[in-house]
């Protein structure tokens, strides 16, 4: 009897814990600590982004490799913290990989841009007007002579059979024999004057040209040409094309800190406007003072990985290593610029090697369809079981529901995320959990058939079925454990729910169902059992 008392207490404890973790799913008001204990949805269900980064430390000496990865993790963490995602997860995987998970994130492009970036921050002077003009002329000439090398320049190559005027956007006069426009580059940069701007329509062409090494080599030596980064608020906006001095005046390593500040004071222009405050290292301060002193009124571009973020005009010689970048930035832009400036000193390049993004609508659809499939499956199985086994079937159905509840409760308790494959695992469990009961019931039937009394038949049925159930389930658990080891994210979710489902089904079948069976038999002193 003592044993039975212990068993009943165990059942009660499991049920109470399960209820504790399931109540927060109900639409009722609860104290905060309790509401937080709600099953977490995986990236694939709530939407979000997962990025795998690889740190290329092959160039580094053995002793510095580990540090390089660690600092890359820190930098990524830093960037993400500043980005403000609710529950980001940044984990080091293996020797040189970093897995970043951003649940609930919607601004995929922005995050991708921030995280996947190999940060090489440089400050470069913008070329003079004459240098820019010279570059433009050179590139126009080069493209005129070599247009056939770039298939996407087709529209600038004139077909002599067709009226030339209709093809030309500008009313350019061309010599009769000339088949290629002489000002392709100028036209792509939309204007004769400064700054050179690239329209959204021409952007792909310019990007492809910039990818070509031969094209880049046409820029006069000592100069380089590079694009302004995409305007996040208006991705279709024109982008400036910069001609910069190749020489790097300062690098990110000379920068000590960068912060967002909000302007104050009476100056209408600065008041309440965000700006970026910079502080250089001692050496940086010296160089910065020299560069600013020699180049007043020129623009100094902040270049991260070859993309120009902004190019403020040097207003004055700046001493002491403290500078500010002001302008008509939004707070968001200022923050991003600060992140760029801060992250500018990565020891080893980082590359995105895998990226998976699920939009919130797909996540919501998955939840909906997963729930529908689970309910239908549950309903069909329960109907079948009650039809086939009558009263014991009812017991099995109660056990099945408890089983589901335990799986959900345990998921919450373990803090594991519910994923779509996880839902599939639960659904599969509905089908398989019944198995333990079927094994028991079939055994009891056989024992009854062999002429045993109800009491002994039930006991014998349970005792014999236990061996089978253990053997059958432990092997399934082996595969689930392997699956967990092998898989990432969603697949792990499947392995977890499948394992929990198997464990829960053993508990419900061998302990709960048995208790219920005994209650039915001892209470009514039955001599017959319809099974």
């Amino acid at each position, binding site marked *: 009897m003592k044993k039975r008392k212990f068993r009943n207490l165990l059942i009660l404890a499991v049920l109470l814990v399960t209820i504790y973790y399931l109540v927060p799913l109900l639409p009722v008001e609860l104290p905060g600590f309790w509401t937080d204990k709600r099953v977490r949805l995986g990236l694939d269900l709530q939407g979000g982004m997962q990025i795998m980064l690889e740190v290329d430390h092959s160039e580094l000496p053995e002793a510095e490799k580990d540090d390089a990865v660690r600092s890359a993790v820190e930098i990524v963490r830093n960037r993400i913290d500043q980005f403000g995602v609710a529950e980001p997860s940044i984990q080091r995987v293996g020797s040189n990989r970093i897995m970043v998970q951003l649940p609930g994130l919607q601004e995929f492009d922005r995050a991708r841009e921030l995280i996947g970036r190999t940060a090489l921050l440089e400050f470069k002077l913008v070329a003079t007007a004459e240098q820019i003009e010279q570059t433009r002329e050179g590139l126009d000439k080069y493209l005129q002579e070599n247009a056939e090398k770039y298939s996407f320049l087709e529209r600038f190559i004139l077909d002599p059979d067709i009226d030339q005027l209709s093809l030309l956007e500008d009313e350019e006069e061309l010599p009769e024999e000339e088949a290629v426009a002489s000002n392709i580059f100028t036209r792509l940069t939309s204007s004769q004057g400064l700054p050179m701007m690239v329209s959204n329509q021409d952007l792909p062409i310019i990007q492809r040209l910039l990818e070509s090494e031969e094209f880049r080599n046409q820029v006069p030596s000592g100069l380089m040409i590079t694009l302004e980064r995409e305007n996040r608020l208006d991705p279709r906006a024109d982008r400036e094309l910069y001609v910069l001095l190749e020489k790097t005046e300062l690098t990110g390593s000379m920068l000590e800190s960068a912060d967002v500040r909000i302007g104050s004071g009476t100056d209408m222009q600065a008041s309440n406007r965000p700006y970026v405050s910079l502080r250089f290292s001692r050496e940086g301060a010296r160089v910065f003072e020299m560069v600013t002193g020699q180049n007043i009124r020129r623009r100094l571009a902040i270049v991260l990985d070859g993309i120009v973020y902004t190019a403020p005009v040097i207003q004055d010689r700046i001493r002491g290593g403290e500078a500010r970048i002001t302008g008509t930035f939004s707070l968001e832009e200022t923050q991003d610029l600060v992140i760029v400036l801060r992250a500018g000193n990565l020891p080893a390049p980082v590359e995105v090697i895998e990226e*998976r993004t699920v939009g919130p609508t797909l996540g919501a659809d*998955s939840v909906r369809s997963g729930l529908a499939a689970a309910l239908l499956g549950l309903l069909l199985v329960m109907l079948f079981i009650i039809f086939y086994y009558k009263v014991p079937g009812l017991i099995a159905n109660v056990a099945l529901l408890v089983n589901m509840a335990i799986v959900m409760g345990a998921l919450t308790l373990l803090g594991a995320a519910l994923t779509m494959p996880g839902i599939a695992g639960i659904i599969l469990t509905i089908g398989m959990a019944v198995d333990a009961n079927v094994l028991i019931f079939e055994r009891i039937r056989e024992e009854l058939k062999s002429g045993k009394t109800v009491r002994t038949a039930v006991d014998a049925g349970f005792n014999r079925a236990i061996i089978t159930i253990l053997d059958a389930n432990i092997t399934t658990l082996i595969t689930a454990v392997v699956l967990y080891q092998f898989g990432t994210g969603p697949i792990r979710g499947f392995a977890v729910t499948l394992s929990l489902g198997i464990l829960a089904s053993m508990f419900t079948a061998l302990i709960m169902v048995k208790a219920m069976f005994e209650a039915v038999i001892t209470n009514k002193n039955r001599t017959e059992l319809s099974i």
Partner: protein
Amino acid sequence: MRFFENTKIDFISKRRIAYIVSIILIIVGLVALIAGPKFSIDFTGGVSLELDMSPPTPDHPALRIDQIREALLEQGMTDVEIQTIRGQDEQTFFLFKAQAEGTESAEIIRLMREKFPEYIGSPGFIRLQEEVGPRIGEELKGKAIMAILISLLGIIIYIWWRFEFTFGVAAVAALFHDVLITVGIFYITGREISLAIVAALLTIVGYSLNDTIVVFDRIREDLKIYRKESYGSVINHSINETLSRTIITSMTTFVVVLSLYLLGGSVIRDFAFALMVGVIVGTYSSIFVASPILVEFFGQRQTGRKLIHKKKA
């Protein structure tokens, strides 16, 4: 209510027919493996992108695949595969897949925005965006094969410990059978092997084994009870005794997997399909493959027990 009560089906004498059926199916599976099944970008590397490009108003003509294909071709993106998916609320989703290196999902998105702006309504029009580097895919392939081998090894060891070595080998033979056939069916139906499908294959391994072990368990028990009977008839008896449980469990499992297939949505459909195939094949294999193989193995032993009783003429 009873199904299959007191059945006395002679499975063992018909095992040769089952062998032929299985061998044909296994050959299909092997051919599939050699010819190379269609691997998803999880293993090959590449891009997969699902965009919501529903018409802005219900009476607006829906975007057609050939319009999209044309737009991609204009940009020289020739290796992109396009599929239409119908959403739960009649939305039109397009699935883009490219395994070639160099195609970037951002490029496709930019192009779609440019060419078909009216079909791109919400900021959340990107439903799914996956980019996998080729190296990751290669690694994953190795890991997947390792995972399957390790679980098979673990199973042989466990069954060896709990039963006998022969049981373990017979069970694993049945598992290979199940996995190969499922891969073969995926090959024939043109479905992709993705990470999720490997998970499904491992689940099939687990499920089929579960089924096999229940029968083996009974064989182990019956071999002790019916010492005078031939191996063939004991095993036949055990299969028949457990037949009702085998069918019921397969049925409940099949029913839930079917509902997952029908209602679970596009993300999980192939996964559910693999499980459906697995439940059928796994049930079949524990009756017609694993148990008969035991008969063959026992036949090699000189224990004095007859392999199969000769039919009375």
